[in-house]
């Protein structure tokens, strides 16, 4: 789960994180005029109002004059963005303009939950503005890290050690320690799984945290209605909203099979079996371990929302899941009509007999089996021209 940059800034401001001054504009002229209002020596124009914009567009355009800001805004505004996980396109209607001071130093900071050691990892690098993968590759050993005990939280002495190792000037330590304490507090309070500050800048005499990403796990959302509300605000992330609502995992891919599974690892193994047959999923939806009929219905709606899905494969090996509950969701969806592509159902595990019997008795038009190999064969058979033609 990800927030837009505007939402991120709104949240972090409450934690007294030192953030850049910014504004929002809906036209090139408005963007240009913003520069005088927000001040600064240079500016960054961003498509920061929806989470998916970060992915779809160049995330930031640096400008050294108000006119350049206007041109950057013009280049962005009106561009078409595919709503993530759907085929719907919409135009970019607003841009965000951030003021930048005289940059005298730049660092990269991130906090992440380390599930293996039950600690929080704090890491930093001088490679500001780069992706963590690049930082790993380029700066491996020079990356600075601290391990934080969740029972104690980040201690000031750790912050000082961290920033000194990153080469921050001594006189900035108190301000940097305070800023990092605010970031840590937000991270812990919001139960985030990762928080990245791509640019932790010294501008003039001031520290500014820029280009921030916060990620959350599904679990954290039900406990934090405000975060949930923020994610729901953005219609563009409908798959994310559905995923949060029904605890579904969701990954978009480029194929034509709409794949629904119980568990990401089963999804991975099923994807490999499909690949053996020349097939790729369009998307993989993970029902998790305790899917209700309603969750199954939402999962089917989610894969069917991709118009290029040619076949649906639902592969559930039930433990805590129950085949009878899954079947209930399938029947209700099929009876609701409008399901065009063929649907293959593979069920095994808890209540498999009850599930398969009920499905067959219902008379809905699905192929069903308890064997995954048979199910894969049924999917292949649903491509009358062979699977090679699938895009």
């Amino acid at each position, binding site marked *: 789960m990800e927030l837009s940059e505007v939402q991120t800034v709104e949240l972090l401001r409450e934690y007294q994180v030192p953030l850049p001054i910014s504004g929002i504009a809906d036209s090139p002229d408005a963007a240009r005029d913003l520069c005088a209002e927000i001040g600064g020596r240079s500016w960054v124009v961003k498509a920061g109002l929806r989470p998916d914009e970060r992915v779809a567009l160049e995330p930031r355009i640096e400008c050294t004059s108000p006119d350049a800001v206007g041109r950057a805004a013009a280049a962005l505004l009106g561009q078409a963005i595919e709503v993530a996980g759907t085929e719907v396109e919409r135009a970019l209607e607003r841009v965000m303009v951030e003021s930048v001071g005289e940059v005298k130093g730049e660092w990269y900071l991130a906090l992440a939950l380390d599930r293996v*050691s*039950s600690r929080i990892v704090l890491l930093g690098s001088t490679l500001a503005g780069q992706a963590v993968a690049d930082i790993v590759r380029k700066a491996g050993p020079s990356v600075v890290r601290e391990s934080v005990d969740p029972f104690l939280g980040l201690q000031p002495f750790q912050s000082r050690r961290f920033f000194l190792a990153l080469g921050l000037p001594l006189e900035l330590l108190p301000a940097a320690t305070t800023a990092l304490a605010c970031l840590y507090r937000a991270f812990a309070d919001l139960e985030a799984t990762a928080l990245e500050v791509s640019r932790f800048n010294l501008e003039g005499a001031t520290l500014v945290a820029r280009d921030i990403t916060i990620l959350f796990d599904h679990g954290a959302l039900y406990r934090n209605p405000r975060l949930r509300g923020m994610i729901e605000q953005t219609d563009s992330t409908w798959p994310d909203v559905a995923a949060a609502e029904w605890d579904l995992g969701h990954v978009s891919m480029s194929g034509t099979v709409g794949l629904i599974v119980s*568990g990401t690892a089963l999804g991975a*193994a099923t*994807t*490999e079996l499909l690949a053996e047959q020349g097939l790729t999923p369009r998307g993989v939806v993970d029902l998790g371990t305790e899917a209700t009929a309603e969750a199954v219905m939402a999962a089917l709606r989610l894969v069917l929302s991709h118009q290029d899905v040619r076949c649906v494969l639902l592969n559930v*090996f039930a*433990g805590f899941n129950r085949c009878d509950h899954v079947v209930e969701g399938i029947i209700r969806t099929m009876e609701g009509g409008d399901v065009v592509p063929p649907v293959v159902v593979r069920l095994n595990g*808890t209540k498999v007999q009850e599930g398969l019997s009920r499905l067959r008795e219902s008379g809905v038009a699905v192929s069903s089996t308890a064997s995954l190999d048979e199910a894969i064969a049924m999917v292949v058979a649903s491509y009358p021209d062979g699977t090679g033609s699938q895009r």
Partner: protein
Amino acid sequence: MSILLDEDTPVLVYGLPGIQADFYANVMLDYGTKVVAGVSPRHGGQRVLGRPVFTTTDECVRETGATAAIIFADADSMTDAILEVADAGIKLIVAISQGHRVTVWDKIGVARFLERWPESERPVLLGPEASGILSVGQAMIGVMSPHIFARGPVGVVTRAASLGYEAVARLTAAGIGQSTFVGLGADGVSGTEYVEMLAHFENDPATEAILLIGEPGGPAEAEAAAFAAGMLKPVVTFLPARPKPTGRGALAERIVEAFGDQAAGRIRQIASSGMIPVPHLGELTRTVADSLTRFTGSGRPKGLSQ
């Protein structure tokens, strides 16, 4: 023989009575598990399935001598339930969360709590969101479907529940039975790791080979690979690559993989894998069968099963 669990292990069901707890307690009883009692803060004093229900785990352990537990609890009550059960001295805990998933922060808090015990005395925690443990033909603490298992020489340890079942069903269909099946639970935050299970399987006379199912590139898998290199028994691994989420969804994982507390070890260990990889699901049974013919430990004959 088996690891951690057999037909004499006294098991309490936390959350009994309750819809899910009732259902799986019945499955467990049908399979021969020695379910001795339920624990429910709201239903103490009742009897369910012919067993007493206690209000606190302390009292239950005192009265019944239970040494293992399965917990059915909502995400919001899970931390409290695990702490209660661990505090009462239970050393084998399977945790099944109902409804919402337990937040990663809660899971980390529980794992951090368990550090109060030295490693040798620390409870084994499977979950939250685990499948549990099943010693074939003896007992089950979990939410598996017992009909897919058959007795035999393969120990199975998996983080993935469904894929673990899939693997077991394939083994059984191919005539390769299992000794004990251990589902560690998703996310890898429980504090109980593959390595601990590998050590148990190595010492279990009934186990001749181990099937480990996980994720490629994870630090726990790397640690397991290093451990497996020193084992007598073959370890087969199936680590299907998961589709990467678009966007920056995997940021935390990438950071921890690169810089987590185990990261340095991981890089060292990946080079020297002591495990036998399964290329894809279709090859699973063949790879396991091959590995069984390799094992000659304990002076027993090589062979698929006995």
